[in-house]
């Protein structure tokens, strides 16, 4: 994969010095995705479903064909793809609709300290509301979820397993192919947070056998304001809507109403139309690049970077065995917020903080971490720019007395 060529697809790289290493927070957006968004607004920017004239017909067709594109992309059926505001919104729908209806007093919900707040907290709320028990998978010494440790907490009382595909802090990939069948054996449903998975590797919901799976548009070259919730048809069928209103209802009486079928019963009001259409374009772009190439490219960058980082004294890497393009680290004795300003001075964008995952930050026994994350447009020049800056940072902070 020629990342230098790919950079040309992104207007933000008109700034030649930009070294963007924060794709796990939000990816950059290629021009063709923005153009598709523009085209919606400039040529047929009207409402969907409700209109019976031509412009509205076009908008509806494009919106729904984007749903089909995404369904094909993850090997789901059309009716199993719900457009949401983002991954957080999607994960909340699972907890509020499925969780609140199916979890009862004494039931167990399996979570873990690696989860993003958007996956952890909705279930913390369900557990509280329903007097269910929140059970944590013990992490290994590396901070990983293993099948073995999962089995230690799986019981016949387990009703739900809320788990990430890829950790946004540690970058580890969860062994879901093993965990999901085990969970199904005890009759639990598995809700997968794939916000960090779908942008980087092929996910086939059917072969994975996930019950629910959520991801965001803005982390996979798409716009903000859009995400996806996949749910198995049979589960969606018997679930109640969370929000009620226009476009999700079949018939309305004064005191009763009947909702449409999925996915529409979960999509009340005017949906994020332009956003959904543009997300379809992002999917096409990813498919053209090819997941194999993406994975290989990110791996190579990651391996090179970690190898070089390990040569620098005064740097701690928290996930040296990581299998994705996410590297968590700190400069010893330097608060990440101080460090990140140094990198910013070199036009290198990276995250400092708890990355919406306070539990694992605490598990690491630090106040916060630095994180770089690679994506399709990152080059070895980016890696070198980062490594040079990292050396400079270590030296600088030492020199001023940290």
């Amino acid at each position, binding site marked *: 994969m020629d990342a230098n060529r790919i950079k040309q697809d992104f207007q933000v790289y008109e700034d030649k010095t930009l070294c963007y290493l924060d794709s796990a927070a939000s990816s950059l957006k290629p021009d063709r995705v923005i153009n598709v968004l523009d085209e919606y607004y400039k040529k047929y920017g009207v409402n969907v479903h409700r209109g019976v004239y031509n412009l509205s017909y076009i908008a509806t067709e494009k919106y729904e064909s984007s749903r089909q594109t995404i369904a094909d992309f993850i090997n789901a059926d059309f009716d199993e793809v719900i457009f949401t505001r983002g991954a957080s919104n999607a994960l909340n729908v699972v907890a509020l609709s499925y969780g609140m209806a199916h979890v009862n007093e004494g039931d167990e919900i399996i979570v873990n300290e690696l989860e993003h707040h958007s996956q952890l907290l909705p279930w913390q709320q369900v557990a509280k509301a329903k007097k269910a028990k929140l059970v944590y998978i013990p992490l290994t010494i590396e901070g990983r979820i293993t099948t073995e440790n999962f089995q230690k907490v799986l019981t016949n009382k387990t009703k739900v397993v809320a788990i990430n595909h890829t950790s946004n802090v540690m970058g580890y990939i969860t062994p879901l192919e093993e965990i999901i069948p085990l969970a199904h054996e005890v009759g639990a449903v598995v809700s997968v947070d794939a916000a960090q998975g779908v942008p980087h590797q092929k996910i086939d919901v059917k072969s994975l056998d996930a019950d629910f799976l959520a991801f965001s548009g803005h982390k996979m070259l798409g716009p903000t304001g859009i995400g996806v919730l996949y749910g198995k048809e049979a589960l969606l069928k018997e679930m109640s809507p969370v929000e009620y209103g226009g476009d999700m209802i079949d018939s309305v009486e004064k005191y009763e109403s009947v909702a449409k079928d999925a996915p529409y019963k979960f999509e009340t009001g005017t949906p994020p139309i332009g956003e959904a259409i543009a997300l379809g374009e992002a999917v096409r772009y990813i498919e053209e690049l090819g997941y194999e190439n993406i994975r290989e490219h990110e791996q190579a960058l990651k391996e090179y970077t970690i190898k070089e980082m390990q040569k620098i004294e005064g740097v701690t890497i928290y996930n040296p065995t990581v299998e994705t393009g996410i590297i968590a680290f700190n400069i010893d004795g330097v*608060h990440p*917020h101080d460090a990140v300003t140094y990198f*910013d*001075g070199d036009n290198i964008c990276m995250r*400092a*903080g*708890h990355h919406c995952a306070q539990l694992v930050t605490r598990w690491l026994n630090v106040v916060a971490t630095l994180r770089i994350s690679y994506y399709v447009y990152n080059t070895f020049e980016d890696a070198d720019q980062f490594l040079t800056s990292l050396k400079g940072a270590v030296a600088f902070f030492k020199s001023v007395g940290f």
Partner: protein
Amino acid sequence: MNNMENLYRQVIMDHYKNPRHKGLVNDEHYHTSHIKNPTCGDDITIQSRVEDGIVKDIRHEGTGCSICCSSASVMSEVLVGKTVEEAEKILETYLNMLTNKEYDEEVELEDAIAYQGVSKFPARIKCASIAWKAFEDTLKESE
């Protein structure tokens, strides 16, 4: 290249390594304010004791970056002993300086002037102001 030297002045590093007035007290004459910046985990508590219109003492405690922690220490040194009016004037001047607003250069900021460089680092202005804002809150409570 980087102009980090403008940010990490010696005064700042000194107060970061050797904070003055650190540690809270359990005394009802003090007013307390707690401010967090969840973005980066800054978390600071400020206490102040005002008597006869004079800032008698300031205490601080918390975690955060060097800019945040040091500024609580510097602030304590600068403001203790000032009248409330003087303290408010310094506070206003300091915050204006940070945010690139016009400010009265006549006002003596003492060591707090070391934070002048922060205005060039917009993402760090919050770090340098959070302790001062917490102090402002304690003053309001005293009124």
